[in-house]
């Protein structure tokens, strides 16, 4: 990275042409830094603070991977990506992993040649309306004007939902979430639709949140997860299991408070394998240190539940309930394969 704007470019073009990098792990280690594609700004999921330090639910994945691979959660270069640039940034190698509230779909997995390493947030599209409207169900929205972001899957879901239920609507197209809020508050549309997590965050920022209700219907499946390029299975394994480590940690009761204690060795062999405290060295199988799992959990700022609570959970202004994102033992969908 000592190369500079003027020279490095042309010189590197000639030199690098020879070897196509398949081993992302080696690249990241050589670089000493993880390039992580994130949202340019999404409340609770990815946002820089006044000093330019990124934090959020998606950002925690970047930190976990960086900590597992490099041993330091701060060795991340955050690359802000837009809806248009995110896939190219990943495909071209500009980022090593994309952790940007991206819906896992068939075509993105197969046609765009990406590997989704799991789901870190199960989302779904919902509706928000003014309480004064007196609507209690999305099925009562016949003839409503709906604020909808253009060029997104939500737009298609909306059309499907109204068609299936034999209703009509008139769309008010908006470009960004901030614009949608303005339009909705100004009364330009009866209902505002986007992912339920986004609705909750938007409602939380209103001057009078109690005047608005989020309708119970969720009309689509939006499994959001991090993704990497096709063709480097080792890297996919590393990132997948770094995320799974966070989920497993919650399941086994490993928290940022007791992790130091537990990593000295416990009665539970599963925890020992996760934290690298026992005989088994899982890290060696994916080219990492023995205590990679511990580093990932510490680097991310705790287990899945702790991250959730700190960034988007019920104690934050966004106030999302765990819902589908609870552990399988709690009636949710989070279920990590065993660390064995």
């Amino acid at each position: 990275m000592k190369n500079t704007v003027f020279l490095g470019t042309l010189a590197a073009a000639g030199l690098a042409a020879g070897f196509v990098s398949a081993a992302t792990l080696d690249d990241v280690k050589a670089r000493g830094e993880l390039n992580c594609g994130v949202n340019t700004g999404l409340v609770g999921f990815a946002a820089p603070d006044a000093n330019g330090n990124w934090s959020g639910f998606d950002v925690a994945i970047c930190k976990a991977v960086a900590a597992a691979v490099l041993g330091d959660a701060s060795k991340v270069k955050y690359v802000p990506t837009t809806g248009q640039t995110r896939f190219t940034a990943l495909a071209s190698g500009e980022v090593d992993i994309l952790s940007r509230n991206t819906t896992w779909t068939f075509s993105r997995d197969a046609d765009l040649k990406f590997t989704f390493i799991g789901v870190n947030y199960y989302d779904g599209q919902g509706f928000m309306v003014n309480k004064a409207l007196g609507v209690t169900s999305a099925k009562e929205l016949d003839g409503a004007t709906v604020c909808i972001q253009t060029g997104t899957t939500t737009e298609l879901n909306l059309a499907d939902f109204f068609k299936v239920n034999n209703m009509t609507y008139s769309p008010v197209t908006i470009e960004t979430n901030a614009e949608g809020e303005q339009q909705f508050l100004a009364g330009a549309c009866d209902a505002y639709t986007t992912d339920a997590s986004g609705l909750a965050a938007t409602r939380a920022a209103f001057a009078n949140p109690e005047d608005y209700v989020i309708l119970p219907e969720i009309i689509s499946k939006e499994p959001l997860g991090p993704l990497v390029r096709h063709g480097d299975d080792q890297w996919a394994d590393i990132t997948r299991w770094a995320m799974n480590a966070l989920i497993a940690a919650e399941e086994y009761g490993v928290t940022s408070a007791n992790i130091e204690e537990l990593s000295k060795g416990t009665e539970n062999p599963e925890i020992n394998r996760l934290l690298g405290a026992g005989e088994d060295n899982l890290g060696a199988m994916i080219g990492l240190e023995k205590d990679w799992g511990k580093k990932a959990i510490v680097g991310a700022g705790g287990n899945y539940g702790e991250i959730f609570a700190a960034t988007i959970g019920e104690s934050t202004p966004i106030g999302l309930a765990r819902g589908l994102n609870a552990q399988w033992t709690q009636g949710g969908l989070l279920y990590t394969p065993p660390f064995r």
Partner: protein
Amino acid sequence: MSDTHSETVAYVRETMLPQATPPASEVGAIKWLRENLFSGVLNTILTLVGIAAVVWLVQAALPWFLHGVWNANSLPECRQIIAETWGEGAHGACWAVIRERWNQFLFGFYPSDLYWRPVLALALFFAAVAPVLFTELPRKLLWGSAFYPAVAYILLWGGSLWVPISVMAGFGVGWLGLVAARRTNLPLLGPLAAVLLPLIWWLFLAGPVAGMLEDIIPLGVEEVRSDKFGGFVLSLTIGIAAIVLSLPLGIVLALGRRSDMLLVKALSVGFIEFIRGVPLITLLFTASLLLNYFLPPGTNFDIILRVIIMVTLFAAAYIAEVIRGGLAALPRGQYEAADSLGLDYWKAMQLIVLPQALKISIPGIVSTFIGLFKDTTLVIFVGLLDPLKGITDAVRAAIEWKGVYWEPFIFVGAIFFVFNFGMSRYSMYLENKLKRDHR
């Protein structure tokens, strides 16, 4: 003659009347109002509608400005303060977001202990362009201006001092080549050496030489990478670099388009029409996305540099057409006069044609520059954090500031206005100074 009046009128006053004040409707404010605002039925109606619109706007916006809150840590706190001070339901601006995050709007993620570097770079920029803009200053200062790009690069990006030095040395290599070639008396060798030698230097030698010198004498300042750039540091870096580079390129293209040489003309026309035919966003996407596919993986072609190149090419095509307008406006006699003096093409252009053509083109050139500077906000589409949308969205993504809408736009808009208004005033100054009309 003396008794003419005695036959026509009975009495002729022989003393002057004292001057009376003009009627009230013909002086002062009332006269001005009658002439300018109420001179007819249509104008009266338009005036009343205009006043109503202004009153409505002020009524709607003024309380919002007056209720502004500067000291708060979050939007809910702002709202609480406004509700406490001005009563429930009052609206007000939450300027606290600007107070808290102004540094991000101006500097992006640039390290805060190094803020002096972009500020100094901007100050030095004004010092460097002063001799170009104001001819009263001594001409020798232009030599200082020539080294400004290297200084600005070091200040903005930092890193090894040897890099810009070795890049600048490329120009020296070209000049040496030119001097050496002149001794040989081969006519084409001079220009060829002046172009090829620096290219060879930059492509193959400049990097290793800079690295070698860095190894011998390490000399440098803390490096700041492009991903730390954002806000107005980014806008001004791209804007100023593109403005400075696009003017000479535009002049060359304009001359090329009017050239008699078929190849030069065809290339110029093709370039100008292609660039003008596609939107800037297309070029930015090309720079950011398409190049990634064409260049070998792992190539580290700085994104800001790519954007500067694309914006420069885009602006150069427009500048070329503006200048072509200036060239076309010159009477044919000027060209013929230059020829009859025995001046060759370059001398004729330099001494007679271009000074006049550029003078005519000033308003158009400055318009293009202002447009270019504002277009730098489009870089958000390639993931760079411009001040208008990139930084604003990033700030809004913080939970404490989610929901602020107008305040960042107004702040950023005001700063853009200052820069653009400054450019506009300078162009008017220049037009007045260069006025040679014999009226």
